[in-house]
């Protein structure tokens, strides 16, 4: 049996599929996010070292920060796929992902500021991770700005795809340079990851919330893609035949 990999790459066949998937992802998103937050608020220790209750913002903070970084890779993936196969739908996906990614980045900075204020006593600090996240926001903004500045859809798609690729190539360099402004002192640079040391209940809550955010992003990106499809294909005959729009 041969699989037709491009079956759903046409907007006309993808549109109804997305319509069926959105409710599934939305329900999963609500269940998982609410479940994760419930677990996080009521099943975890009240006092974590000296951070008291404030640390509970971690569930939204980590989930949005992960989504922010991951969605940039997803966006570049679809943009590159569009450049390779010249499929319109890939570009629409990339475009839809960029907005959600930017929102997630802003959300993680926002929740981070609240957490920072309660546990470090400052809204903002030039810590490497925060700075990288801020620059990620700039990269998303650049992508969206370039895309919306070009009227011709085809050129907008391809130009912003190139920009996204260049951005992805430079992101590791930016990350390294922020992490290590003095190359003489960076021989022993190591990235501190503390996921293994986290208390089990908190870990479960984080993972569930992250899964919920994943589902939410799927649902919202699919919804936005559907809107973009309708907008761009409004003159085609299959859109004119859609029952829902009559």
């Amino acid at each position, binding site marked *: 049996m041969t699989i037709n990999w491009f079956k759903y790459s046409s907007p006309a066949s993808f549109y109804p599929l997305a319509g069926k998937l959105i409710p599934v992802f939305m329900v999963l998103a609500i269940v998982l996010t609410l479940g994760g937050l419930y677990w996080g608020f009521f099943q975890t220790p009240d006092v974590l070292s000296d951070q008291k209750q404030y640390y509970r913002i971690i569930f939204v903070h980590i989930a949005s920060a992960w989504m922010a970084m991951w969605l940039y890779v997803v966006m570049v993936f679809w943009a590159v796929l569009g450049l390779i196969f010249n499929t319109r739908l890939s570009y629409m996906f990339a475009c839809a992902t960029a907005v959600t990614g930017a929102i997630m980045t802003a959300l993680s900075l926002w929740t981070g500021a609240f957490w920072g204020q309660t546990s470090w006593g400052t809204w903002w600090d030039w810590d490497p991770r925060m700075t990288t996240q801020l620059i990620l926001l*700039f990269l998303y903004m650049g992508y969206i700005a370039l895309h919306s500045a070009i009227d011709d859809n085809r050129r907008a798609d391809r*130009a912003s795809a*190139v*920009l996204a690729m260049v951005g992805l190539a430079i992101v590791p360099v930016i990350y390294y340079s922020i992490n290590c402004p003095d190359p003489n002192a960076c021989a022993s640079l190591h990235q501190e990851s503390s996921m293994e040391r986290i208390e089990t209940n908190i870990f479960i809550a984080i993972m569930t919330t992250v899964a919920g955010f994943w589902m939410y992003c799927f649902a919202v990106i699919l919804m936005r893609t559907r809107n973009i499809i309708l907008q761009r294909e409004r003159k085609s005959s299959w859109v004119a035949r859609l029952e829902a729009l009559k």
Partner: protein
Amino acid sequence: MLKSFLAVLKRDLLLAMRRRSDIFTVLFFFIIVVSIFPLGVGFEKAMLQQIAPGIIWVAALLASTLALERIFANDFADGTLEQMLLTPQPLGVLVFAKILAHWLLTGLPLVLIAPLAALQYHLDFSTTLTMMSVLLIGTPVLSMVGAIGAALTLGLRGGGVLISLLVLPLYIPVLVYGAGAVAASMQGGISLQPYYLLLSAFLLLALVFAPWATAASLRISVE
């Protein structure tokens, strides 16, 4: 290939020499930005020395983005660029010649004027030399990365501001190590070699990839 490279380089330099005011605008923008900072933050010598590397580099970044729009804009307006895209010579080579000409006209003058800025900020002689050499390695990177942005925003409304938005985040590594080298040289006792090596690595990477990416962007924009 070399012949077409030299021809484009010569043509761009000649065109710029016919309209020299363009070169001086960028140069004076740099000088003005560097000069008004002390008016805003005060004239204390120790503080000026401390903020000098960052300010001079940020001024160089801004001056570089300001000049970027001109790399391709005139050629695009009068149709020359379209003819370049049609030539049998590899576009990357022609683009590289244009970028080199642009750097000679906007980047190199900044390197040469940097000692003046160093005087304003009371930097000593060896720090000034470091500043000039890191600017010499760093500004070509700015021109090359910026050329990609210029090619992508060719002929758009508000292109100038858009270029800054796209390109400034990508300039961060050069800024960090460029300014870092100057600050390290001021402190003394720190090896400057890693800074030079990293900046040279950026330069080599940009040399390999930027002309090619710029050529691809031009094809998308002009199509």
